[in-house]
């Protein structure tokens, strides 16, 4: 479904991602681990086509099509979708307006907002005055209405209390499995893995991917030995 070949990306002439190779198959859920600042969000934003992320080399192929020249909305129309780690506040635009753009099904909007305790937020400007948990739930709300084929989830659990992680994780796992969706989930705490069943995992350190394997095993190794150990441990297996 998504194939990334030899991708290198710079931001303001500074190389952030180097020679990334990655493949996500249809229906596959992959977890991307990595310390803060390792380039995980840069990878997602580059695939989405955001400005400021300059592709130096490589290819991004989605559903067999090279998407390099496509605008963000064209990539979205093709089936990509992203749940932000830190979305901007959008003054003047109400959550309901975006929801109604994403789905014509009023009942679905109502039920999902109820489920995610966002009913009272529908008529509020997006993310303005929202708490950390509310921001994440609003992101999840939008991405589920958007219903992409491949979901990018950027640190879905960061800044969220356990109760919210449980609520969101349950809804997400249900959605991914029932709809046979593909996903790439960024996490550095790994809490979300208690709720979402992932098929594979990989680690990003300093803009490079270092290994690919069982997400639980990788996470256990990171938890016990940290990322530095992970790099040493998996050095021979670095993906290039």
């Amino acid at each position, binding site marked *: 479904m998504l194939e990334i070949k030899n991708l290198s990306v710079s931001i303001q002439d500074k190389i952030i991602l180097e020679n990334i190779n990655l493949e996500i198959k249809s229906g596959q859920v992959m977890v991307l681990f990595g310390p803060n600042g390792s380039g995980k969000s840069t990878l997602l934003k580059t695939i989405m086509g955001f400005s400021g992320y300059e592709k130096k080399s490589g290819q991004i192929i989605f559903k067999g099509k090279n998407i390099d020249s496509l*605008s963000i909305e064209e990539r979205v129309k093709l089936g990509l979708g992203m749940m932000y780690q830190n979305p901007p506040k*959008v003054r003047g635009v109400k959550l309901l307006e975006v929801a109604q753009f994403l789905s014509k099904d009023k009942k679905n909007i109502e039920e999902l907002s109820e489920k995610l305790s966002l009913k009272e937020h529908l008529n509020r400007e997006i993310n303005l005055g929202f708490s950390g948990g509310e921001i994440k739930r609003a992101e999840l709300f939008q991405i589920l209405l958007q219903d992409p084929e491949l979901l990018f989830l950027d640190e879905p659990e960061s800044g969220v209390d356990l109760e919210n992680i449980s609520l969101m994780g349950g809804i997400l796992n249900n959605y991914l499995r029932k709809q046979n969706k593909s996903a790439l989930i960024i996490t550095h705490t790994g809490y979300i893995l208690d709720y979402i069943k992932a098929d594979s995992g990989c680690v990003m350190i300093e803009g490079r991917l270092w290994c690919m394997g069982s997400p639980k095993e990788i996470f256990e190794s990171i938890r016990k030995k940290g990322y530095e150990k992970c790099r040493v441990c998996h050095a021979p297996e670095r993906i290039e």
Partner: protein
Amino acid sequence: MKNVGSAMLPKELNSNLENQDQEAISSAGIDLSEKSRLASFLQKDSEISFFRSLSKDIEILSVEEAIKNFPEVKEYYGKNFKLLNREFPLDTEGGYFIRVKREKTVELPIQACLLLKTKGFKQKVHNLIIVEEGAKVYLITGCTATKSADEAFHLGISEFFVHKGGYLNFTMIHSWKEDITVRPISIAYIEEKGSFISNYISLKPVKDIQMYPTAVLAENFARASFNSLILSHPNTLQDIGSRVILKAEQTQAEIISRAVSLGGKIIARGHLKAENKNIKAHLECRGLILSERGTIQAIPEMESDWRDVDMSHEAAIGKINQEEIEYLCSRGFSKQQAQSIIVRGFMDIDILELPEALRKEISLLEEKTLKLGF
């Protein structure tokens, strides 16, 4: 002055109107069917074309006829200008007279339309609006031009009198075209516990507007509020301000504006003057520049002769954050749709104190006009 009687006028507002008249009048928020209004007035160039009141509590007619029929009206003519030692043009023709009777609440809005129709015509009107003690009224005025009114000019003098405990909610919609020059001059006088709310909307192109309406809070507990939504098109100038003079104690004023430049120049002025103690006043101007050639200049002014006052202002000008556009694009909006939805949100009609009866209409009108503007 020209006397205009009602005998010769059509029975319905919608009678004898050409298509281009109807189009222009509707674009300025006027209900041609009159179904949602309690009184209507229409002036084309200098000709009084229609006036009718459907309520015994409202008098509506041309200002000339009102002066002729009601001796006391003469006292009001020019009164607010004398109060501020200001001169005013005397070469006016027409304008509306509206009076709402004491203690009466007018449930549906009153509407008045000033239409420019003839090429190069200089329309000069003088309006008088009197809200008697304890009366409550919504007034919507649409000022507009047909396609034929090239290079025309509009001067609109308005004097508002809100007597003790009265309430006037005045919505003015400017729906001009790119070669029209406009000079409104307004003064409102508000007595004890009276309220004057002015909502101003200008979204269509206009060559040049200069206006600086003033409200005088003459007696205790009076309140004034000026709220404006301004969209500026390339090669246009909109020099638009609002002034409130807080003469009495415990008076309150608010000036709020949202300005968007698509390439034209907007000067957003505001002036709050405290001439007594224990007053409260706030001024807020926010501007968004969408074109590299656009200019917004915010000039907020506050003056006080007293220590015990609570006055504040905030002003912010900027462009749309790229991150917000891309965020909406990542939900599937095109760049243009994202920009449009952000601008529509910025030009939020909730900053206006619109009555429920007008809210939906104005919202639809704004949506339609903004859609055409992008």
